[in-house]
């Protein structure tokens, strides 16, 4: 192997990488918040008395979980304009990622809620709590503790998967990497550094989630 590695041209453009990193971070934050809400709503809908609503959510979850994110993204960004719905790249990316995360979160939240014993719900009702209070205080809050690890790893996977939206031109961390690649032709070095950045982000996510877990669930609920 007679290749000389040269990382300097990459490190000279570190500001570009930082710009992309910021985009990846805010996109992930928005999608995690929206996807989590969508998941809770989905889990609620699956327990609904309306059969059509349950069917609708089940179809949504199965459709999303059995197709690749890239195909979903292309369908939203390239396919929808075919029927007159035009979205810019960032909006399309946000929608695709949120719809995707929402389906996985629905399954996780549903599982967590199912694990709450019926007696606990009955006790909440017996204490005279309103149904909304029962759901949030008696069901969701304790369930959050059991499903937190699964949610945290799903959110981290989402952040990593968000690199896919670079393919429709959103200038996230990965896209900035591709731009540096075209400017310097140091492909291997660029993508190694970009992978390293994502790895640091993933470890950071893990730390932050561990911290949130400790702060939120330290005291016996």
């Amino acid at each position, binding site marked *: 192997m007679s290749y000389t590695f040269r990382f300097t041209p990459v490190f000279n453009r570190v500001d570009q990488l930082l710009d992309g990193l910021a985009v990846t971070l805010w996109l992930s934050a928005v999608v995690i918040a929206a996807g989590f809400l969508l998941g809770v709503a989905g889990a609620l809908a699956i327990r609904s008395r309306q059969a059509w609503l349950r069917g609708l959510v089940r179809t949504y979850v199965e459709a999303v979980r*059995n*197709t690749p994110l890239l195909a979903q993204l292309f*369908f939203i960004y390239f396919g929808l304009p075919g029927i007159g719905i035009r979205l810019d790249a960032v909006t399309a990316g946000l929608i695709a990622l949120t719809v995707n995360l929402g389906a996985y979160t629905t399954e996780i939240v549903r599982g967590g809620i199912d694990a709450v014993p019926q007696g606990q719900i009955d006790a909440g009702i017996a204490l005279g709590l309103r149904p909304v209070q029962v759901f949030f205080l008696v069901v969701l809050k304790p369930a959050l503790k059991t499903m937190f690890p699964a949610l945290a790893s799903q959110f981290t996977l989402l952040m990593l*998967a968000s*690199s*896919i939206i670079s393919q429709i031109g959103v200038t996230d961390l990965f896209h900035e990497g591709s731009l540096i690649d075209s400017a310097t032709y140091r492909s291997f070095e660029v*993508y190694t550094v*970009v*992978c390293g950045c994502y790895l640091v982000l993933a470890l950071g996510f893990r730390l932050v989630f561990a911290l949130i877990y400790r702060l939120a669930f330290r005291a016996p609920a």
Partner: protein
Amino acid sequence: MFRSFGLNECLMLLAGLQWTAGLTVLAFAGSFALGIVLLLARIARWVPLRWVAIGWINAVQGTPLLGLLFVAFFGLALCGWDVPRWAAATAALSVYGSAFLADIWRGSVQAIPLGQWEASAALGLGRWRQLRHVVLPQAFAIAIPPTVGFLVQLIKNTSLASVVGVMELSRMAQLVNGATFAPFIVYACVCGLYFLLCYPLTWWSRRLEARLAPAR
């Protein structure tokens, strides 16, 4: 003039689907082989070997597959190997899959009660024979449903190989779309085809899991 989306275009998509299936088989074989090695390292008695395995698993799970694909694609070329695109994609997908499979399998091995290890040790079996005759056969049964579930992930992730130019379903969709300019129908078909490939496996994995549940 654009071509209209007809039978020939459907056949092109199906040809892409074949590549998706082929790439999945190759990637699964690679993930399987690497995953076994990684699992053995992960549960090895020699601690540094475990660290290497833990480091590998964490590093790969913390890296986007898209990044692995590019690093493999350019990295293999740097090594002077003129590998075809599908081989680079297979390498990246195998590295990616190995980390997840090893983690799934480690969970299955750890689900085997310690008493099984102790009993087989009491019978005079060495570490290797304990694994081969007592622990792994039992862990295997537990590992099947999540492994099939991961196969679905792998099928979906082969779509990323389109980015480095492998002519699988997603890449074919881009070509067909370029020729017909019927993006809605093309991408709807592509999503449908992926679903047809993945859903039976999802269903099977769930069934296997349900069948396993009462046994525990």
